[in-house]
């Protein structure tokens, strides 16, 4: 009887084996853990972004915000910045022709 039950369990609910639940939870946890970043990294990123964007747009640096939004399914990097004006000159690059 025991054997039959075990067999049935194997045939019927493969996906319900508790180790599969563990594996799924684990994979999610590891991805989620790695999204956690240090506050100073976000600050560095913000500084770098301002520098790059400023080559193309005049922006209000004080109003700019940068955040990570997490939901159960996904995470997103959300940046919000008011544009004051576009810069119409081509940005200066090292290898750009004059």
């Amino acid at each position, binding site marked *: 009887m025991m054997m039959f039950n075990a067999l049935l369990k*194997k045939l019927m609910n493969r996906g319900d084996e*508790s*180790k599969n639940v*563990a594996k799924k939870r*684990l994979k999610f946890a590891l991805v989620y*853990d790695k999204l956690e970043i240090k506050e100073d990294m976000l600050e560095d990123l913000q500084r770098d972004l301002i520098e790059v964007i400023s080559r193309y747009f005049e922006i209000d640096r004080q109003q700019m915000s940068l955040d990570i939004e997490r939901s159960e399914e996904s995470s997103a990097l959300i940046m919000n910045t008011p544009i004051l004006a576009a810069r119409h000159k081509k940005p200066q690059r090292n290898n750009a022709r004059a």
Partner: protein
Amino acid sequence: MEGKVVVVTSGKGGVGKTTVTASLGAALALQGKRVAVVDMDIGLRNLDVIMGLENRIVFNVVDVVQGRCKLKQAMIKDRRINNLYLIPASQSDEKNVIQPENMKWLCNRLKKEFDFTLLDCPAGIEQGFKNSIEAADEAIVVCMPEISSVRDADRVIGLLYSRSITPKLVVNRIIPKMVERGDMLSHKDVVEVLSIDLIGLVEMDESVVVSSNTGLPIVMQKESKAGKAFMQIAMRMNGHPDLPVEDPMAPKSFWKKLGGKISRKNKVH
């Protein structure tokens, strides 16, 4: 030629670091290597009792790095196994009495004399961990097939990578019967999740407890499954990296054996 310094670590506590360090130390020495094992768990030493050397301690690793004794004086020679030495931890000091530079200095000296220096790392990722990985050339990460242990292993693996060490994995305390019925992660699941190389598997084995009771190295116990597993891991560390890892098998009952035979027959037809 200089030897290697290998740190045994896990993040999570109680998963088998000390057992692995003691057993691999003994196994490598039995295979003819010169081995030093160092207990880095300052304040909570245990490697000495697991190796059965607890009543021979005079000096410890803190005494060595603080210059209170010579390195030789703190090394306890195992009288049952040739070329195996223990440097015990101090039981009374704080973890931060040792700094990473001290460990570099110590390990550089040990490397000149020993083929393998194994460091038994404390649980966690604080000072004791940092001291241990600072001096390491290689790492063994121990984990149990269980969700919190694997998660902590992942964290530690990340920290090792950032020090340019690519660790190898030991999955400890596997219960084949539970794996078979789908109630325990298999070593393959763990390897898939952590995506690092496996260096060995150790089953949950009563003889590990017996060996810790007596202080007799598990690799010297005939018929111990765990002992055999440790001998194989030592071989893989020691010039035979391709020695295959066998799948653990649950002991089969009569009915299961019969069932297996029948299903095999069916496959043939």
